[in-house]
């Protein structure tokens, strides 16, 4: 790990000031579950690390009208245990899927949404796009864990944000602050993520010196939800494919639905047509299975990861069934 300055702001404004020194060659430290590894592997070399854990305004979970606002510093464990989030089951499913108590206690919501890809080319120092003389190392190399959707450009990694599918399926907004001390903006979380065409674009709309401060969930309004993560291992492991479904059921029939897949594309992948196919249907094996088929119909698997199409399809089917408490017999 290279030397860096360490700063510990007490409020958002201080945090932004500190982040915007050094031409914004700075990094945000919250739970540290990703940043520390990035620093150790020399994948990031900020001149200053800004530890935002003391920023009180970014902590906690609060009711906001009919909805809920979650501070970016909220830990996974707090999400899991909050009565205000009990009806947003798809979020608790993600916490359960993380399984590692250490990550659940240290990891934060904001950190998850900003988590950089676990792509092994990226983590071995080849960059986000892993290009060599313009050729994709991912396309030519071992891509068993890579994207099956949205992978026709140079980016072929999968988004590592585990909460994003569930939050987007709930229609969450995200508050981005900075780079100036006074500036802040709420935007739909769905618009937060980007699939980079060039290395410098990163994985989200965050510009240097900006950070996430809050996430806002709309009222559940009686909707049900679930996240299904296909996890090879029972311990800490990255999902092979995930899906989150939020469904408005009216007498057993779907009135409205939202489905978002994770770990299948460089960004969370909303499956609008799959969700649409459920409307007016009862939730059952047939309708959920059809939604799964539709969700992956446009998949363009790489050489090694055709199996992920099956996993994504299954994740969608099971997320839909699970949201309606109808999932049986899965490992």
């Amino acid at each position: 790990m290279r030397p860096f300055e360490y700063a510990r702001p007490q409020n958002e404004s201080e945090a932004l000031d500190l982040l915007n020194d050094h031409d914004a060659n700075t990094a945000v430290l919250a739970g540290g579950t990703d940043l520390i590894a990035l620093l150790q592997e020399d994948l990031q070399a900020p001149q200053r690390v800004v530890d935002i854990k003391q920023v009180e305004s970014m902590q906690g979970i609060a009711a906001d009208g009919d909805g809920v606002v979650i501070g970016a510093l909220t830990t996974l464990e707090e999400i899991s245990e909050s009565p205000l989030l009990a009806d947003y089951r798809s979020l608790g499913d993600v916490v359960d899927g993380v399984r590692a108590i250490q990550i659940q206690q240290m990891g934060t919501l904001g950190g998850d949404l900003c988590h950089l890809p676990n792509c092994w080319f990226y983590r071995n120092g080849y960059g986000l796009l892993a290009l060599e003389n313009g050729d994709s190392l991912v396309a030519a190399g071992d891509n068993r864990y890579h994207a099956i959707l949205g992978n026709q450009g140079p980016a072929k990694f999968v988004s590592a944000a585990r909460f994003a599918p569930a939050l987007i399926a709930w229609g969450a907004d995200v508050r981005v602050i900075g780079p100036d001390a006074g500036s802040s903006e709420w935007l739909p979380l769905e618009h937060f993520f980007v699939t980079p065409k060039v290395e410098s674009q990163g994985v989200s709309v965050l510009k240097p010196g900006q950070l996430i401060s809050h996430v806002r969930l709309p009222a559940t309004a009686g909707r049900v939800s679930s996240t299904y993560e296909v996890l090879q291992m029972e311990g800490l492991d990255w999902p092979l494919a995930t899906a989150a479904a939020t469904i408005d059921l009216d007498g057993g029939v779907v009135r409205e639905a939202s489905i978002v897949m994770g770990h299948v594309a460089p960004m969370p992948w909303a499956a609008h047509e799959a969700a649409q196919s459920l409307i007016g249907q009862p939730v059952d094996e047939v309708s959920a299975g059809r939604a799964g088929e539709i969700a992956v119909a446009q998949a363009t698997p790489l050489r090694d990861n055709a199996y992920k199409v099956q996993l994504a399809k299954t994740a969608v089917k099971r997320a839909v069934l699970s949201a309606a408490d109808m999932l049986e017999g899965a490992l």
Partner: protein
Amino acid sequence: MAERKVAWKKRTDNTLIGGDHQRIDGVEKASGHAKYAADINTAGTLFARLLTFKGGAAVVKSIDTADAEKTPGVRAVHVFNGAGKEVRWDGTIVAAVAADTPEQAEDGVRAIKVAYEAKPHWVDEEDLPGATTGKRTKPLGDNKKGDVAAALKAAKHVHKGYYGITTISHMCLETHGSHCEWDGDDKLNVHLSTQNVSGTGGQFAGPLGIDASNVSITCNYIGGGFGSKFAADEWGVACAQLSKKAGKPVRLMLDRATELKIGGTRPSGFAEVTIAADAEGNITVWDSHHWGTSGIAGSTISLGQLPYCFDGIPNRNRKATGISTNTGPNRAWRAPPHPQLCAVTDTVIDDLAAKMGANSYDIFMKNLDKTPKPDVYAEEMKIGAKLIDWKAKWHAHGKGGGKSVKRGLGMALHRWGGRAGATTCTVKVHPDGAVETFLGSQDLGTGTRTVIAITLAETFGLGINDVKVNLGNNSYPKANPSGGSITVGGVSGPHRRAGLEALWKIYDLVAAKYKVKADSLSAKGGKILSAGKSVCTWKQACGLLGPMPLEVQGQGPKNDGLTSQGVAGVQMADVSVDIETGIVRINELVAVQDCGLIIDELTARSQVYGGLIMGIAYALSEERVMDNRTGRFINADLENYKLPRIGDIGKLMVHMYQPDSEYERGVVGLGEPPVISTGAAISNAVANATGVRVPVQPLTPQRVLEALKGGQA
């Protein structure tokens, strides 16, 4: 006086041997007081960091360490591979830097300028046609027995299939490395993470130009070896050189990625096999061609041991081809290369059973006459079947029930040698009754200290904690390296012999003093008894020695029945397979294992549990992933090199098979056997659940789904 004979006690006379005993160093380890090489931090110790090659193959064109040497805090730089040297696999060490702090050492590493000229690489271990085209293969022999062609014609059932098991890497919790400290110019003290305390001193002395007698090797505790830590290694010698250059002690442990890349691998094996049987299910034919890699040397699993355990199959063709890959070299990996041999034998037999529509258990049982220990296997199979409830749970292959989750049963069997290794010990009985022993062996975490203490305590009629075991230093009498399941036999025989010799001397003194017959004496409960009546205490007896301690040397192995070799072993698995995700979960795993006379059943069972867990790892998730494009070991980390956690283990049931006939054999090693057949048993259970063979282990979701899609039976 009756002849004094070296032997173990009658089984029923033991008070300690055969019982469940906690490790005598358990508290030290669990409380963090035990010091490993990675913990040694004498005053002024420098930290070392490594510059490694990141690619498939290259030649070092130039290397410039000038800036590194000027980096603040850096005390010494050592170049492993200078200009002109070939680096032939990812992770090859190019240089090391020692500095006051780890961060300064990293700064130093970054300041080294290296230029490489890339060379072509080949890292694919499974692609035989590709490797052949690329001229990376070499024949490793073939041989024949009987008449395969004629037997195939006569056979009633013939099955042909593809099988395999990938390379895995050593993953010791404590990585390879040492702490080196010079005492003057020519005396070196090394704390080495090693399985070979007595044999590594010379490996330091030679390259360093000092006398072997001037190298002290210490290893009181080690965080895993599994066959990968027998040598000083180039990085061990480099640690000493850095220390000399810096004039300060240096600790150099491999980082995790480098550990995975160069700490040693288990070679892969992929095989095309034809097997055939007569109408009754007697296997008559084995015909195989297998290939794989051990790294640049281009070996694979041994030709001579296929079909594994079933040497008696009358007609056999076998052929092996090695693939030279630009990958880190192999080292012995627990039971080399039996897990791979089992993985490409017992799966084939299971598929033959499936093809016959037979119960796999029956086909294995029917063919035990072709194995080295048919009677033991048969008994162990019966015990295993009862434990896992084979009869009630069995169903035909592919009839695993459930819509998306199928359940299945599988079994496999194994063998191992486990002879006693050559060991010498010096046992001291002090006039105050204290007992201690010295030997240049090592306790790999397997309970060696505990077994020694039990052996002497049983012999002297003392408690386990009355014996002090001094091992882990090369100034003590020489002991074999601990590898190949030879240590428990290696240390228990000499200690029993030395213990008896000492005891007999003490008996003679007691007999003279108390006017009793020496051959009427026994030692029990801290007392010397004559015909069951107390004569004196152990301390009083030892007081008769005079002012000097009694010192007896014990040696082994000897042909006196204390130790033996050769074990069987059967494992059975009950698994669930989610056919929509390809995920496999272990429900139950049964191991029935013999190993002769068991000194401490608790540590014996622990060995088996550990073997099963390692087996689950390589069966389901653990593998080295080499990226063809970059030549890199792309998952050399603890996230993507997937090892099971507690939730992945399922229910483990261990039964130590120990009828009197086993006790009478004496002590046989146990470390290797329990890891061997786990993979094949799990693979067979998956095949039973789904009706489809997933040909290559580990059985990842990717491989399971691809096999299901192909419907490969």
